[in-house]
C-alpha cells in the first residue's frame, strides 16, 4: 500500500454527504492528485444515515472498496457519532465534526485525533441552504475541511465554480474562517473495524416468511428539530383591559359547561353581565376572526355566562391577618378592587357618594342598555363576600385623609366628575345641558322629559346614550353632531348603528361654534370641518373651516368628555402612575379607574381596580400577583392561524328589540344571543383544544393521546414540522435541537 489518503464522510440523506465527498475530491484533483469519490447507494431517505468516500493519491488509484480505515473523518451531524462512526479510524487522524458545541466542550473525548469542530448547520441555515428541517451542510463543511487540509480559498472557489455550487460558496468561506481545531494530545490505537469479512446473521427463507416484525428503526435520530406543545397568548385575552381569560371561558362553555366558564370569568372580574352589555369589546377588535368572517361575539358569550351562573365565589373566609382596605368610589373600578381584595380574604370598606353603589353603571348608562336588576345582582354578589358599603356621602379632603389613616391601604376610584364645557357664544342659554346631568336625571331622578328637536354634541358613548335617551324622553327628532367622521367616533360601533336604526341622525364633520336663541336656545351654529393629518391618537386632526350653518333646535345636550376631579385630595397628595405620593413619600394609597387612567370604559375600570388591589397588597408586603395588562404584540397574529381549517361562518348576532317598541320605552334593547353556538366559532388562538389535527397529520403516526393533550414519541419523530404547521391555532412550536 502506498500513500493513499482515505476520507470517509458520515451524513444523513438530504445533507449532501455524497456531494461533500465529491467537493473534497474535486478540490484535490485541482491540485493534481489522483482522486476517487463515491457514495453508498441504498434505501436512503431524507434523514437516514449515509456514508460517502474519497481517496486521494499521487499514484493512480486502483482500490475500489469502501473506506474501512479512514485517515480523515467528516461527520455532518453530531448525532451520528454512534457505534460505528469511528470504525477503523487511526489516531492522529483528522476528525471534522459539525456541532453547535464549542470544541473545548468535548474535553478529552477525541484527544487521540486532530479534532475540528464547526457549527455548519447554523452557517448553512443562515445562508438559506436547504429547508428548515433539512439543512444542507455539505458545502459549508467542505469549506472547513479545505482549511484543515491546507487547500486554499482560491482552489476551493474554483472547485465550487466547477461543480456549479457557487451560490453556497459564501457559507463555505465563512466555515473556512470559523472552524476550530485542536491538535492530538493522546496517542491511541487505531479503532477496530467492526465490519467483519463475513456476516453470520441468519436470513430466513422467503417461503417461510409469514410475518414481518417492526423495523425498530429509530428515525428520531434523523431529526434536527422537534415539535412541542405550547400555550400562546390569544389576542382577545391580550386586548381585554380587564385581563379576562377569554379563550379559556369560551372554550369552557364548549367543553366543560357554564359553571366552569363562570369560575374562569369570576377569577378576573365580578361584572360579566354588565360587561356583556356595555363593554366596547376590544377583545372583538383583536379577534383573529374579525377580518376572516367577523369577530366571535365575545361580549355576547360573556353576557350569556354572566346571566346564567354566579361568577363570584359563594363565600370567602376572612383571613385572621386580613388587611383593612378602604375603597373610595363604588363604580366599576372600586367594585373590582373591592372584589379582588375580598376574594383574597381581606376586609374592605367601600365608600360611595350616591345612595347606591354602581357609579356610572347607575348614573350614566341608560337602563335600556343596562337594566338595573343586572347591576343589583352583580353588586350583590360582591357584597356577599363581606364587603362593607358606606353610601350617600361625598368625601372631602379631611374625611379622605382620615379614612386613609384608618386603613392599611386606600384605593381611590372616584371616576371623572369634571364635565367639559363648550366655550362658545350662547353656551349659557337655557335648553343647553350637560349630557351627564341629563342622564343622571333620566336614570336616578325619576326621569326627564324633552320635546322637539334635540341636538347632541359629541361622538362618544355618552353622546349616544344622550341621543337615544332623548328619543325615549320625548324628543321628536335627535341629531348627533360630531367634529370628526363617523369612523372616528369613539362610541361603541353597535351603539352608533342602533342609534341610526332608531332614527337618530348623524351630522359629522361639524364643530359647534355658537348657540343662537333669545334666553332659550333655538339653534346651534355648526362650522364644517375638514380632516387634516393624523394627530397623536392616530385619528385625523379636524380643521375647522369658515363655512357655517345654523341647525334649528329646541335643546342641546353636551357630551364633550369629562375629566378627573381631585378636589377631595388631602393637601400635598399627588397621583403618579397609579400611586399617591406626598412629596417623595409613597403612600399606601392607589388610584384606580378613570381617575387614574382616564380610559373611560367599564372594562378598563375593572382591570384598573384589579391592578390597584394587587399594588396595594404588594405594598403591604403580601405575596400577590399584580395584574399587568398583557402585551398585545405578543398575541398570536392572524397569520399564524391556519384559516384553511375553518369554514367561514357568520357571527351569531345579539337579538334586538324591534325599533318601534324600543324608542317608546326604556326596555332593554339588546336581548343577547339566542343560543351558545357562537363559542364554536372561537379559533382558540394559541390554546390547544385537542382537535386531533396534529394526531391526524403526523406522517409517522407517533403523536399519541396523553392525559390532557398529546405526547410526541421523539424516538421516531423525524422533525418534519407538519404538526406545527397544521396546528390550526398556533398551540405548537418547533424548536431546533
Amino acid at each position, binding site marked *: 500500500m502506498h500513500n493513499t489518503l482515505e476520507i470517509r464522510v458520515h451524513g444523513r440523506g438530504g445533507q449532501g454527504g455524497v456531494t461533500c465527498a465529491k467537493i473534497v475530491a474535486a478540490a484535490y484533483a485541482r491540485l493534481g492528485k489522483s482522486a476517487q469519490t463515491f457514495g453508498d447507494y441504498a434505501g436512503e431517505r431524507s434523514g437516514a444515515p449515509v456514508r460517502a468516500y474519497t481517496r486521494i493519491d499521487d499514484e493512480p488509484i486502483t482500490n475500489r472498496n469502501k473506506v474501512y480505515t479512514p485517515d480523515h473523518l467528516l461527520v455532518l451531524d453530531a448525532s451520528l457519532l454512534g457505534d460505528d462512526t469511528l470504525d477503523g479510524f487511526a489516531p492522529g487522524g483528522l476528525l471534522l465534526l459539525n456541532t453547535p458545541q464549542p470544541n473545548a466542550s468535548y474535553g478529552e473525548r477525541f484527544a487521540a485525533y486532530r479534532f475540528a469542530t464547526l457549527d455548519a448547520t447554523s452557517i448553512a441555515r443562515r445562508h438559506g441552504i436547504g429547508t428548515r428541517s433539512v439543512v444542507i451542510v455539505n458545502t459549508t463543511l467542505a469549506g472547513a475541511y479545505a482549511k484543515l487540509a491546507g487547500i486554499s480559498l482560491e482552489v476551493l472557489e474554483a472547485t465550487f465554480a466547477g461543480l456549479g455550487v457557487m451560490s453556497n460558496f459564501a457559507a463555505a468561506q465563512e466555515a473556512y474562517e470559523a472552524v476550530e481545531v485542536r491538535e492530538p494530545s493522546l496517542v491511541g490505537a487505531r479503532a477496530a473495524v467492526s465490519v467483519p469479512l463475513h456476516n453470520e446473521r441468519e436470513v430466513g*427463507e*422467503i417461503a417461510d416468511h*409469514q410475518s*414481518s416484525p417492526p423495523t425498530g428503526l429509530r428515525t428520531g435520530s434523523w431529526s434536527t428539530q422537534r415539535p412541542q406543545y405550547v400555550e400562546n397568548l390569544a389576542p382577545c385575552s391580550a386586548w381585554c383591559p380587564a385581563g379576562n381569560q377569554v379563550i379559556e371561558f369560551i372554550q369552557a362553555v364548549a367543553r366543560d359547561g357554564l359553571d366552569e366558564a363562570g369560575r374562569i370569568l369570576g377569577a378576573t372580574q365580578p361584572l360579566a353581565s354588565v360587561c356583556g352589555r356595555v363593554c366596547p369589546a376590544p377583545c372583538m377588535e383583536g379577534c383573529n376572526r374579525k377580518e376572516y368572517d367577523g369577530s366571535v361575539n365575545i361580549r355576547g358569550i360573556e353576557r350569556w355566562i354572566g346571566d346564567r351562573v354566579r361568577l363570584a365565589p359563594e363565600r370567602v373566609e376572612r383571613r385572621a391577618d386580613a388587611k383593612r382596605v378602604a375603597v373610595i368610589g363604588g363604580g366599576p373600578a372600586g367594585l373590582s378592587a373591592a372584589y379582588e381584595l375580598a376574594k383574597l380574604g381581606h376586609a374592605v370598606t367601600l365608600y360611595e357618594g350616591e345612595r347606591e353603589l354602581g357609579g356610572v353603571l347607575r348614573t350614566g348608562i341608560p337602563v335600556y342598555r343596562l337594566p338595573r336588576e343586572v347591576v343589583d345582582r352583580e353588586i350583590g354578589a360582591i357584597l356577599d363576600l363581606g364587603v362593607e358599603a358606606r353610601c350617600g356621602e361625598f368625601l372631602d379632603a379631611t374625611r379622605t385623609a382620615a379614612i386613609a389613616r384608618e386603613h392599611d391601604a386606600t384605593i381611590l376610584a372616584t371616576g371623572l366628575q369634571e364635565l367639559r364645557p363648550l366655550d362658545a357664544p350662547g353656551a349659557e342659554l337655557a335648553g343647553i345641558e350637560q349630557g351627564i346631568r341629563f342622564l343622571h336625571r333620566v336614570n336616578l331622578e325619576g326621569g326627564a322629559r324633552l320635546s322637539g328637536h334635540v341636538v347632541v354634541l359629541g361622538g362618544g358613548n355618552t353622546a349616544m346614550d344622550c341621543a337615544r335617551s332623548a328619543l325615549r324622553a320625548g324628543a321628536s327628532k335627535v341629531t348627533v353632531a360630531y367634529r370628526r367622521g363617523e369612523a372616528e367616533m369613539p362610541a361603541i360601533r353597535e351603539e352608533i348603528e342602533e342609534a341610526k336604526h332608531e332614527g337618530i341622525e348623524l351630522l359629522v364633520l361639524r364643530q359647534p361654534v355658537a348657540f343662537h336663541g333669545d334666553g332659550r336656545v333655538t339653534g346651534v351654529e355648526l362650522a364644517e370641518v375638514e380632516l387634516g393629518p393624523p394627530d397623536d391618537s392616530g385619528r385625523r386632526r379636524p380643521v375647522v373651516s369658515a363655512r357655517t350653518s345654523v341647525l334649528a333646535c329646541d335643546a342641546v345636550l353636551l357630551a364633550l368628555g369629562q375629566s378627573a376631579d381631585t378636589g377631595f385630595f388631602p393637601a400635598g397628595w399627588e397621583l403618579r402612575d397609579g400611586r399617591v405620593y406626598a412629596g417623595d413619600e409613597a403612600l399606601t394609597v392607589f388610584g384606580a379607574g378613570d381617575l387614574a387612567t382616564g380610559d373611560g370604559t367599564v372594562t378598563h375600570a375593572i382591570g384598573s381596580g384589579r391592578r390597584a388591589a394587587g399594588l396595594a397588597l404588594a405594598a403591604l408586603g403580601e405575596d400577590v400577583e399584580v395584574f399587568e395588562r398583557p402585551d398585545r404584540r405578543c398575541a398570536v397574529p392572524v397569520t399564524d392561524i391556519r384559516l384553511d381549517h375553518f369554514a367561514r361562518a357568520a357571527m351569531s348576532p345579539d337579538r334586538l328589540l324591534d325599533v318601534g317598541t324600543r324608542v317608546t320605552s326604556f326596555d332593554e334593547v339588546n336581548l343577547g344571543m339566542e343560543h351558545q353556538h357562537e363559542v364554536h366559532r372561537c379559533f382558540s388562538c394559541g390554546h390547544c383544544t385537542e382537535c386531533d389535527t396534529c394526531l391526524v397529520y403526523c406522517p409517522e403516526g407517533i403523536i399519541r393521546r396523553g392525559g390532557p393533550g398529546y405526547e410526541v414519541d421523539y424516538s421516531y419523530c423525524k422533525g418534519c414540522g407538519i404538526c406545527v404547521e397544521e396546528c390550526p391555532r398556533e398551540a405548537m412550536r418547533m424548536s431546533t435541537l
Partner: protein
Amino acid sequence: MTTQFVSANHAAALAVTLAGRANRGARGFGGGIYPITPQTECIEFLCTQEFDKGSLVRVESEHSAMAVCMGYSLSGARSFTASSSNGLAYMTENVYAASFYRLPIVMMAVNRTLGPPWNIWVDHGDTLMLRDTGWIQLYCEDNQEVFDSILMAYRVAEDRRVLLPAMVCQDAFVLSHTMMQTEVAEQEQVDRFLPELDLPHRVTHEPVTVGGLDFPHETEAHRAQHHAALGRVFDVYAEAQDEFEAIFGRRPADPVVPYRMEDAEHVVVSMGTTASTVRTAVDEAREQGFKVGALRLRMFRPWPEELLARWLVGRERIAVLDRDISLGHGGVLWSELRGLAPRDTLVQNYMLGLGGGDIRPGHITEILEDLRTREASGAPALMEVGQ
C-alpha cells in the same frame, strides 16, 4: 383413463384443467391468460372448461398474465399460464419475480423463434433466455409427455422442499399443433397425485411484507436458498416419477433420457422433438455398425450435471445439437455441457433447425458423419436446414 386424439396444446390444457380442479378443496385455481401463437389454442381450450373453484383472467399482456398468476399463487391458489416467444420476453420481469417469491406456478411455454422479423416456428431460444430465472424447466418430446409433464411440474413445484415455479416447454407446431393419441387421466387419479396446495407463505391477514428490500447479505442468503431448492428437485422428481407410475401406470421420463448408450462411442445430445429425429438417425448408424447413442435432455433446469456426467464418461465424441443460438457464442446447450465432457473427448456443437427449419434424419446423419471424420472440435457450426 381415456385415450384422446388431441394436439399437445390441448393435452396441456386438459392436464391443467385436472390439476386445477384437484385443488378445489383448498384455495382453488386460476391465472392470467393472454394469446400468442402458437400457444393460443391452449388457453382457448381452458376457457371452455369449468372449474369447481377457479377462474381465468383475460389480461392485457403476458407481463400481467404472470402478475395475475403471482396474485393467485400468493393467495394460495394453484396457478397457470401459457406463453411463447416474444410473449415470454415481455413477461420476463415477472418470470423472475414469480420464482424469487418462491411461487409454484406452472407455465406451458411453446418454444418459438423470437422476432422481429416475425417467425412463428420452433426455436428453443425463448425459454433458454429464461434459464437463469430460477424456474424448473422441462422440455417435452411428444403429446403424452406434455400432458404428464404438466402434472409432474405441479407435483414437484408444490413440494415443500422445492416451492418453485416450473415451465413445461414444447416445440411450436411440431408438438403444439400436432394431434396424437394421448392418455388422459381421471380426476380421481389426479386428485391422488396432486395433494391440495398449502403454501406456507400464503398471504393472509398477518402483517407481512412480501418482497420488500434485501441488502447484499440477504440477497446472498436468498439466492443460496433458491439454488439449494433447485438442487432438491432431482430427488423430489424421482419420488414423483414413482408415485406417477403407481397411479397412472406409466413412468415419466428421467431428466436425462438415454438411447442405445450401452456401448456408444459417439453420442448425440439434444432437446425436444429433435431427439425423436436423432433416434432414427442413430438406428441407421447402428445398422451401419457405428457405435452411436443419444441423450435427450428433458430437464434443463435444474441442470442435471451428475446424470449427464455419468452418461458421458468414456465417450469419444459428442455432438451437441442446439435449436437455439447464443449470438456471438454458440449453442446454449453446448456451452453448458462441454465442461462436463472428459478431457480427451471431442465435443462439437451443431446449431440447426433455427427459426423452425424442419430437422430430418438426413441432417443428423450428416452431423454424425462430420463428427466421425473431424480431427478436432471446431467452432460451433450452424447448419442450415430450412426451406
